């Protein structure tokens, strides 16, 4: 036992020396993860987009129409930046991307309202961007419904109905929407809480595959294995331990941004957060070992990691729900630790749900830790025989002598 611990330490010391010799490692483990965390935080720090540019085509030019324009302008979400002369002109501005939506106030609006002729107000919004499209739709619909309701109320007041009665008459049924577990409709929190771990898993996978693959590529793997006392488990443990520590710290930094700076409410003990972060880092290191063990040629291992890591953005199901994907992807999605992490985050940390509901996800994440054992033998043989070294294609040899 003592011998094993000593060997692990030897490998770790060796790794730390190797780490300090290359700038690439510093980039991947520290600079880029922190930079990407700050990027996503800073890009969306307003939480909800505000003052999005819209236009009004005012064909009426009366007191009523000008009041409507002011009403649109003062909502937090929109800002009337222009008043084009015609619908065609407004449509062109929309296509150019200068405005996200516009409202057309028809000729004779004021007169038609007074004469109860039910004038038609059309509104247009561009729906090719997810968040902007949804917000525009809600905002413009709400403003115009409020306007319509206001006219209804005014008319009833003129007829002498009392106020309480009017509200019930104008809106006999109201809808009260409650948001469960995320009482703010804050996109930044919604997006950032998942994108940060997704960026981190890219770096963990990349670093794990690279740090093992480079030993094979540069034929230092035998010396590495010798340092470990010829145990591949000791070799891997000693090598990856410093990265576990660094990535764990980076993840806690991300948690600091999420829970302290962005103010996501934490309804679980902080100990759970520490535990889940640690399991998260370890499970991705395990996936990394599995990939390089499966494809000990570094470039192929990296390609596989890249494919898998980028796919996590779609298949973890935070943007488009997995339940509504074709069934094969429902099984595939289970193969991403980040999906289980997301479940635990939502159910346990955000909602304060019982551990019972998150238990299957914890178990799944722990299962990933078993993955390396399926490729240990293959990896060890690759380390010893160094037979997965690719010579560059012939064409590269010709170029330098040309």
């Amino acid at each position, binding site marked *: 036992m003592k011998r094993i611990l000593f060997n692990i330490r030897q490998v770790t010391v060796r790794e730390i020396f190797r780490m300090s010799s290359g700038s690439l490692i510093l980039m991947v483990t520290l600079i880029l993860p922190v930079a990407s965390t700050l990027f996503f935080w800073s*890009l969306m720090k307003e939480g909800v987009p505000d003052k999005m540019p819209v236009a009004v085509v005012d064909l009426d030019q009366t007191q009523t129409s000008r009041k409507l324009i002011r009403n649109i302008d003062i909502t937090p979400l929109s800002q009337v930046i222009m008043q084009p002369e015609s619908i065609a002109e407004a449509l062109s501005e929309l296509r150019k*991307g200068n405005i996200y939506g516009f409202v057309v106030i028809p000729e004779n609006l004021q007169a038609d309202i007074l004469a109860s002729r039910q004038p038609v107000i059309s509104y247009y919004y561009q729906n090719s961007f997810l968040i902007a499209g949804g917000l525009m739709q809600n905002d413009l619909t709400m403003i115009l419904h409020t306007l319509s309701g206001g006219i209804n109320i005014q*008319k009833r007041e003129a007829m002498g109905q009392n106020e309480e009665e009017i509200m019930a008459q104008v809106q006999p049924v109201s809808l009260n*929407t409650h948001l469960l577990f995320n009482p703010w409709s804050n996109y930044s929190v919604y997006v950032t809480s998942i994108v940060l771990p997704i960026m981190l898993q890219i770096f963990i996978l*990349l670093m794990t595959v690279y740090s093992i693959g480079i030993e094979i590529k540069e034929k230092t793997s035998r010396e590495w294995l010798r340092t470990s006392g010829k145990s591949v488990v000791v070799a891997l443990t000693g090598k990856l331990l410093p990265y576990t520590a660094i990535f764990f710290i980076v993840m806690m930094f991300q948690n600091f941004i999420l829970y302290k700076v962005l103010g996501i409410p934490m309804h679980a003990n902080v100990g759970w957060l520490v535990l889940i972060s640690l399991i998260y880092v370890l499970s991705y290191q395990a996936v990394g070992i599995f990939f390089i063990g499966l494809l000990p040629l570094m470039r192929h291992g990296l390609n596989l990691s*890249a494919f898998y890591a980028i796919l996590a953005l779609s298949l973890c199901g935070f943007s488009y729900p997995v339940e509504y994907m*074709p069934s094969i992807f429902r099984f595939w999605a289970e193969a991403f630790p980040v999906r289980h992490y997301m479940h635990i985050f939502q159910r346990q940390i955000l909602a304060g749900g019982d551990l019972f509901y998150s238990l299957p996800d914890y178990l799944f994440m722990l299962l990933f830790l078993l993955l390396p054992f399926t490729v240990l033998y293959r990896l060890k043989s690759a380390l010893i025989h160094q037979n997965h070294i690719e010579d560059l294609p012939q064409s590269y040899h010709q170029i330098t002598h040309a």
Partner: protein
Amino acid sequence: MKNWSQSNSFYIGFQQMTAAMRHEIRLIFSDAGVLIILFAVPLIYPVLYSFIYYPEVVRDLPIAVFDESASAQSRSYLRNLDATPEVSIAAHVRSMDEAARLFREGKVRGIVQIPSTFSDDIALGRQATVSAYADMEFFLYYKALVTGASFVTLETGRNIQIRNLTKTGYTDRQAEVTAEPLKLVENAMANPAGGFASYGIPAALILIIQQTLVLAIGIIAGSIREKQSGSVPKIIEYGGPGEIIRQLIGKAVVYFLIYAVLCQFMLGLIPSWFGYPRNADFIEIGILITPFLLSSIFLGQFLSVFFKNRESAMLLYLFTSIPLLFLSGVIWPLSNFSPLWQMVRALFPSSDAMTGYIKLNSLGAATGEISKETGLLWVMTAAYFVLAFMAHFFIHIRSKHLREEVIGTDMN
């Protein structure tokens, strides 16, 4: 005589260019890694993503209803709710606890509660309140429940109002106009169904083009540098500035031609197979994509001088892909970008190409309406060409110095 030598030097230049082209083609087609990036990724990713998002919209979201009123009115409300395309009633529960349990177990994605006073309120002319509990964690679930419930609530309210008004002696038409003084007509430009793939895939297609181009060019350059490291750094020497230009252009032609073919598949066949918006024709897309491909190629050539080995290009690819998607303005609205991120955004051809492509294809913009994007892409083409030239020229000068030094030491 003078004429002859001019045409001759032109001929030599042309020969150098075709030699560079032939050489690049040989490198590309003998390197399995590069072939995967150039052909497998652009062919597989669009198909894979299209299948992932195939159903596009959340329909029939399973919800639990807690009907405390159990009246004709509440049953009619729930029937209408069930009939909306957005939601479907999966369970009638007897308590909020039961609903919450189903919710935690993931059996339902939302809860609608109708209070016991619902029918009395309506009969007595008081405002009745329906409560909807939505899951904000999944944006599309929230949207589906709120859209469905709002629609039914507005309709129910309107019908009650009209009925009440006709009871007091209004004609049907009068009642309708009083309940709805304004007729509101909603027009969603592009993607009226709100399909998720139609939001994301067009942007992804453009991003894949830029990322694979930069990656492929980077892998080849990194491999050359990797081959040379260890020995005397005799990085490729050029005959002079003219030869650098001919080399850069010759290689660019090769990548341009390969991607011109790939674009037929990615921007032509994929949208037609999966029914994505296709408002632009071949020429309109060509006008936008030509400067996009060229600027991406020269960006790749510029960045390629920084790659020391085969892996470093992959690192850049992995690190930038997801942030570039967010920088484009497709997810987070551009009008809310800080000046800093506006500037960073402007550095990458993919940003303007993504928004330009969506405007052309989804919103039906004319070529003139995306002249800003096209113009910026041409500016980037020129800028990255100059940068690529300068970077290569710098290397040329440096390796010339190195060689002189090496020769100098040999002489001693």
